[in-house]
């Protein structure tokens, strides 16, 4: 008989961003039991459902070998007793008494009752809590109910004093507790104002705003999908006079602080509307709409107040105030950082605009606006600089200097912005490495990986050939980030990246060019055989301990050896693309016909020197021995 399975872990509100990873973790564990479950969740429940579970696992049988045929009767009796049978039940196979011990398959419900508590408490969360007492179980939030059904039966178990059952809970205020079966579960919850499926909740939100031109925001949508059990969007308005404030400020208030969608007018400009997503079915009296409008009005009033207050002191007059803003306890104030960044921008060849931008870049940290809306750092400085008549080169550089904030983000739009961004990040990296604040494993509290990747991305995409100028651990750290960028962001194969970086990676745009060339020649017929030969040459040289030596053409044997030598001479200083086709047969022939380890030590040394020269010729392009070939 095949049975449906339902598990609902009822909790208090789980942080939205932890829900999908938790479902994956739960699913993987159920897979381990042979249950291919479909996963669903709301903020208050993690749900696994499956069909076709067996009622009982298959029986197993094992043949147990006993005493020899001629053994004393007592021994035979003893063996039979141990198996719980009489000697008459034993069989004789070959020279031995044997017994076929049959174990009936366990009931699935027992297996589940035994494993589910462990599985549930092993769900991986970034941060857990205890709630029943110091040594109690840990979970993301308190577990308040458990529904566990196999067919029509409750799978009995208990976690933290909560017994499993068949009773679920609906929406906190619109719903009630209700008994469910595996087939009525979803509908009963729907009747109690809980939409179990994230896809259905997403669709309900999208459907509710389809008549509006809402600013696209997939991340916010996902947050809202997991923040409400019964999401319903409503449209609110704000006073159009707030549109005088910069869009960046308005959108940040709406998005980050209130989780509202912004709405655009027909011309694509910000309209004086917003969309809030409620966790309830409707707002017939407009109470929720008015409440949200008031909150937004207060927020916008604050923002306007900050904007006006901040204008009383120019950015340029705030530089000294940075002495009172901590950059990092061990690394001093933002004033010290600013001075270092200005110097670094100079060193990197930044013009007076870039230097001016570096000087003013952190001043917005002292403004009321940034104290309140920290995510607007940089942007606010840029807007204020613009308002205070700084040249476009300067204000844009300030505005952009935190970019790129992710690998999907764009780099600063101007050269000045690129240089300030690089200098700021490099300074952070050098400082943190100097005082030992080095990322380990998943711990990277100062987002140094992102900073280093940002530097790499800017240098490559802005075609900036600047030395990263660092050594030791920081150089290794950068090498990893360069590899990450070209592999994960730009899609080069890992062996191509290793090969090209083995040649050099101090000039990133140049490295990029070589990688593009490498990628292009890789599928050509001569490339991989040649790469395999180069790997062979490298091994030969290493085994011989050969690190270079004089090459004497007079010692060459005529035939394949001198032909290869001629080819090497012919192709000197030429790009790899044009020489591969001619070079490959000569190399192949050489290895086919010539013994490198010649009996005469002078000849041998000369051959090694020739091969060494061949490798040297392409050394600045790539180390081909890093290429993984199929042969």
């Amino acid at each position: 008989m095949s049975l449906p399975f339902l598990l609902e872990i009822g909790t208090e509100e789980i942080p939205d961003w932890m829900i999908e990873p938790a479902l994956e973790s739960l699913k993987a564990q159920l897979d381990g039991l042979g249950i291919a479950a479909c996963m669903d969740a709301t903020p208050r429940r993690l749900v696994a459902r499956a069909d076709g579970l067996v009622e009982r696992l298959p029986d197993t049988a094992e043949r147990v070998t006993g005493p020899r045929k001629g053994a004393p009767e007592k021994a035979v009796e003893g063996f039979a007793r141990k198996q719980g049978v009489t000697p008459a039940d034993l069989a004789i196979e070959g020279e031995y008494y044997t017994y076929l011990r049959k174990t009936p398959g366990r009931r699935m419900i027992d297996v589940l009752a035994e494993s589910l508590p462990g599985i549930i408490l092993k769900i991986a969360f970034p941060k857990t809590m205890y709630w029943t007492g110091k040594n109690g179980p840990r979970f993301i939030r308190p577990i308040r109910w458990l529904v566990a059904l196999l067919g029509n039966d409750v799978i009995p178990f208990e976690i933290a004093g909560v017994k499993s059952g068949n009773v679920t809970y609906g929406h906190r205020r619109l719903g009630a507790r209700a008994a469910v079966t595996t087939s009525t579960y979803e509908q009963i919850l729907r009747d109690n104002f809980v939409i179990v499926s994230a896809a259905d909740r997403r669709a309900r939100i999208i459907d509710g705003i389809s008549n509006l031109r809402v600013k696209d925001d997939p991340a916010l949508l996902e947050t809202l999908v997991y923040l409400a059990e019964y999401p319903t969007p409503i449209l609110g308005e704000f006073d159009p006079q707030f549109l005088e404030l910069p869009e960046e400020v308005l959108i940040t208030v709406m998005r980050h602080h209130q989780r509202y969608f912004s709405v655009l007018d027909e011309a694509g400009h910000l309209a004086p509307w917003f969309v809030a997503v409620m966790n309830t079915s409707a707002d017939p009296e407009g109470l929720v709409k008015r409440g949200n409008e008031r909150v937004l009005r207060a927020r916008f009033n604050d923002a306007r107040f900050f904007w006006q207050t901040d204008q009383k002191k120019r950015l340029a007059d705030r530089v000294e105030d940075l002495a009172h803003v901590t950059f990092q306890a061990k690394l001093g104030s933002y004033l010290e950082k600013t001075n270092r960044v200005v110097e670094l921008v100079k060193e990197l060849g930044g013009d007076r605009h870039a230097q001016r931008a570096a000087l003013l870049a952190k001043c917005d940290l002292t403004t009321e606006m940034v104290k309140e809306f920290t995510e607007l750092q940089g942007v606010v400085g840029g807007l204020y600089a613009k308002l205070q008549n700084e040249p476009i080169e300067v204000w844009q550089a300030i505005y952009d200097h935190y970019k790129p904030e992710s690998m999907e983000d764009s780099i600063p739009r101007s050269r000045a912005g690129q240089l300030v961004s690089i200098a700021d990040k490099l300074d952070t990296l050098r400082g943190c490495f100097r005082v030992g604040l080095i990322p380990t494993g998943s711990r990277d509290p100062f987002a140094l990986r992102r900073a280093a990747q940002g530097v790499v991305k800017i240098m490559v995409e802005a075609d900036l050939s600047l030395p990263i100028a660092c050594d030791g651990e920081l150089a290794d750290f950068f090498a990893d980030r360069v590899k990450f960028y070209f592999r994960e962001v730009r899609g080069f194969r890992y062996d191509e990246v290793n090969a090209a970086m083995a040649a050099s990676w101090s000039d990133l745009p140049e490295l990029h060019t070589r990688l593009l060339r490498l990628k292009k020649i890789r599928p050509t017929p001569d490339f991989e055989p040649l790469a395999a030969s180069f790997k062979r040459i490298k091994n030969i040289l290493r085994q011989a301990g050969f690190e270079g030596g004089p090459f004497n053409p007079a010692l060459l044997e005529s035939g394949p050896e001198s032909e290869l030598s001629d080819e090497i001479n012919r192709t000197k200083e030429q790009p790899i693309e044009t020489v591969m086709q001619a070079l490959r047969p000569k190399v192949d022939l050489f290895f086919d016909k010539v013994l490198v380890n010649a009996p005469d030590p002078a000849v041998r040394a000369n051959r090694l020197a020739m091969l060494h020269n061949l490798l040297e010729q392409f050394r600045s392009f790539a180390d081909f021995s890093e290429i993984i070939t199929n042969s």
Partner: protein
Amino acid sequence: MLSFQQIIFKLKQYWADRGAIIQEPYDVEVGAGTMCPETFLRVLGPKPYRVAYVQPSRRPADGRYGENPNRLYKHSQLQVILKPSPDDVIEQYLGSLEAIGIDLTKHDIKFEEDNWEAPTLGAWGIGWQVMLDGLEITQFTYFQQCGGIDLDVVPAELTYGLERLAAFLQVKDSVYEIEWAPGFTYGDVRFADELQFSVYNFEMADVPTLWKLFDLHEGEAARLLAAYPKKTEDAVQKARFPLLPAYDQVLKCSNLFNTLDARGAISVTERVGVIQRVRKLAVGVAQAWADQQETAP
């Protein structure tokens, strides 16, 4: 329409009906209701406790001379501690909102992740900010650690922002327009505090004097902590030891630190060190208190 004071009466009555002791505000300046001994010390140890009190909470840097409609130097928190946290704690909390006239079937309520942490107290917890129609009205925390000590029993802490709740219920755009009692607005009662303490904290507080006071209070707390009979078996001597007065000295330090900070008198390099000094004292009191509770007769 409920007045400010009626909202407070109703919430206190609601929690009194659920077994909470109704305490009065603590009489030493604090930055938050959590810092009062009724929370900070009572959450330690295994003894059950339920308490609710309104705590005026001073944040010198948040003062705005009474000019900002939503920001206050001193705001009022209703602090509720339920130790251990009951299984239906969220239902009970929602009931308290209904008790002050909020029909939750007509409003939008959400629990958004917001874990609370107070480094100067060596304390943190897991929880949410509770959003009502987009307005944060309560901080809800399951305490996990206090004074650097893992808690035996997990208390739920509910911190209601009373001005916000009142402004919401009375539909006021400025806290100063809230009706405190018939005929009296919040502004009538509190405006002078906001203005004068802003002037003092930002302009007139004498920095050397404040530092001197800080050092004196710190010294007194440290002196007492050093004298706590850690090893003695004499339970009576332990039980009568004045840890509560020592903790008052720590609270004084904390408020002086906040005032100096608002005054712009604490440099970057000093800041971390001063926080450490306060933390060390707070953690010291918490640990001694836990010991005292365990051994006292």
